[in-house]
């Protein structure tokens, strides 16, 4: 199906010159996307703080505006009004560019996430590969920020970040390939349309691997050792203040929104659902995914860096590969009309594999018999 933007451009071609009919809807689409992202990010900040408060038997912020809905705006204003301090011996150029490199790719991901029926900025036929490629650029930005700050704490954080982000890309990409096999195409719109049964039911193992990998890519608990508050006191953005810190802060919630959107598209059947208009279903689903992310943040302590690496390489990667093999075999053998068989088989495999892999968990760093 054609996207809304294509239809708009076609209609405009009727009475405007070719180049105007091309540029104006594109700019309008970009502005709509940016507005959508910023609004939902502000909502996310409010939702996370209130929800964390309720998990911790306290109310969250409720003073700024009714029930605290202006609190994120107050936070944003406060951050913007702060003085922009650059350390004396820091590498000025890299210190300046790093927040931009972290923030802009996150905005670029939203070009291929379908918000509603046909509401996508551009329906690339390699949509999901574009997402994987662009989201890897932020890693460089984080490393630049930590290296250029001339601070030992942020150096430790930078070293950890390279290890963590690179090693969690692999399970994420492999579980995406599992989805693509069943859907038959890379394009995001076609993946959503192929989900008559949501893929979370058809590939539970793939969902778990993708979700944990995405948590690590987002630097959120329990993998938030890049900015471990109790150890290295804010990690890679320790020397940033003012607008640059605002970019890191918004980038963190922006990437949470981006991954929530991707999970919804890939596993939860996007904007499909009975009854309500599609955009409302999309919003409900991204808020549900975000609630799950906040719930994990509220409960779990964080992992150490070598345990994180061993979890990725020894735990998630073999499971992702096995998931891929199982799904490939099933796609070959099971005809398209009997997809629900995959549901039963995959749940059984997931349970068996998780139980078997738990034997791998060694305690005490492998050094002690406990």
């Amino acid at each position, binding site marked *: 199906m054609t996207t809304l933007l294509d239809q708009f451009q076609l209609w405009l071609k009727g009475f405007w010159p070719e180049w105007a009919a091309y540029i104006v809807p594109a700019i309008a689409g970009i502005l709509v996307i940016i507005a959508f992202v910023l609004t939902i990010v502000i909502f996310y900040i409010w939702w996370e703080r209130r929800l964390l408060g309720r*998990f911790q*038997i*306290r*109310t969250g912020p409720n003073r700024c505006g009714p029930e605290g809905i202006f609190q994120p705006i107050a936070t944003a204003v406060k951050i913007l009004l702060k003085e922009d301090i650059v350390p004396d011996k820091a590498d000025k150029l890299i210190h300046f560019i790093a927040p931009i490199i972290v923030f802009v790719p996150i905005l670029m991901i939203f070009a291929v996430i379908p918000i509603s029926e046909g509401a996508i900025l551009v329906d690339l036929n390699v949509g999901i590969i574009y997402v994987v490629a662009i989201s890897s650029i932020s890693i460089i930005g984080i490393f630049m920020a930590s290296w250029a700050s001339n601070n030992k704490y942020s150096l430790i954080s930078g070293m950890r970040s390279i290890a963590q982000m690179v090693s969690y890309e692999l399970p994420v990409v492999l579980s995406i390939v599992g989805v693509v096999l069943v859907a038959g195409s890379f394009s995001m719109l076609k993946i959503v349309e192929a989900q008559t049964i949501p893929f979370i039911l058809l590939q539970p193992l793939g969902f778990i691997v993708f979700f944990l990998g995405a948590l690590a890519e987002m630097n959120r608990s329990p993998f938030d050792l890049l900015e471990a508050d109790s150890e290295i006191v804010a990690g890679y953005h320790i020397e940033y203040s003012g607008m640059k810190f605002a970019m890191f802060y918004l980038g963190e919630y922006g990437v949470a929104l981006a991954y929530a959107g991707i999970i919804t598209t890939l596993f939860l059947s996007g904007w499909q659902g009975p009854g309500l208009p599609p955009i409302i279903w999309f919003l409900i689903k991204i808020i549900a995914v975000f609630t799950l992310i906040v719930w994990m943040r*509220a409960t779990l302590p964080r992992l150490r860096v070598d345990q994180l690496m061993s979890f990725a390489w020894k735990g998630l990667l073999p499971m992702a590969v096995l998931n891929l093999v199982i799904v490939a075999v099933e796609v070959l053998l099971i005809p398209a009309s009997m997809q629900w068989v995959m549901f039963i088989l995959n749940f059984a495999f997931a349970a068996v594999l*998780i139980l078997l892999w*738990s034997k791998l968990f060694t305690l005490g760093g492998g050094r002690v018999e406990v």
Partner: protein
Amino acid sequence: MKFERYGIGIARGMALTFRHLFRSPITVQYPEQKLVTSRRIRGNELVWFPEKCTGCATCAKSCPQGNIVIVTHGDEGSKFIVDKFELDSGRCMFCGLCVESCPYDALAMGLNYECAKYRRGDLVLSKEKLTVAADHQPSAYYRPQFEGKLPKQSLLLWNKADGGQKLRFLPLSTRKRGSGA
């Protein structure tokens, strides 16, 4: 074979956190809601009863830091008249040793805890500010005779039969907020 550490501990922990979503929060929205302090609170501004005080300065001797300054002069006969009775409440640690040592029950702890001032010099309280008055009542610390007039304390313990963390506030404190300067 025995299976352990496959994620069940994390799942049970998350179930507990989820259950807490349905308990009402224990936050007190200060300053609209205030908890009633205990009757024996060692509050900020001491309360002095001039009729009972004989100027013996036992309180000044028993303060670990020497915060109380008393200047008296003799009257005809054997009584003392107290000229200056000053308490440096900025240095005071509110231990209550002065109240405990007074042999004539002339000193008591105050009830207030909201007495911030803008200047450090204002924290030195002279005898006019310390004298008992309608808005400057004593607390029952070491003075059980004042217990009857004070309201009961609001405790977090007395919540609804479980599940609920609802605080039961006793009627809100009717004292006004401390004045500024």
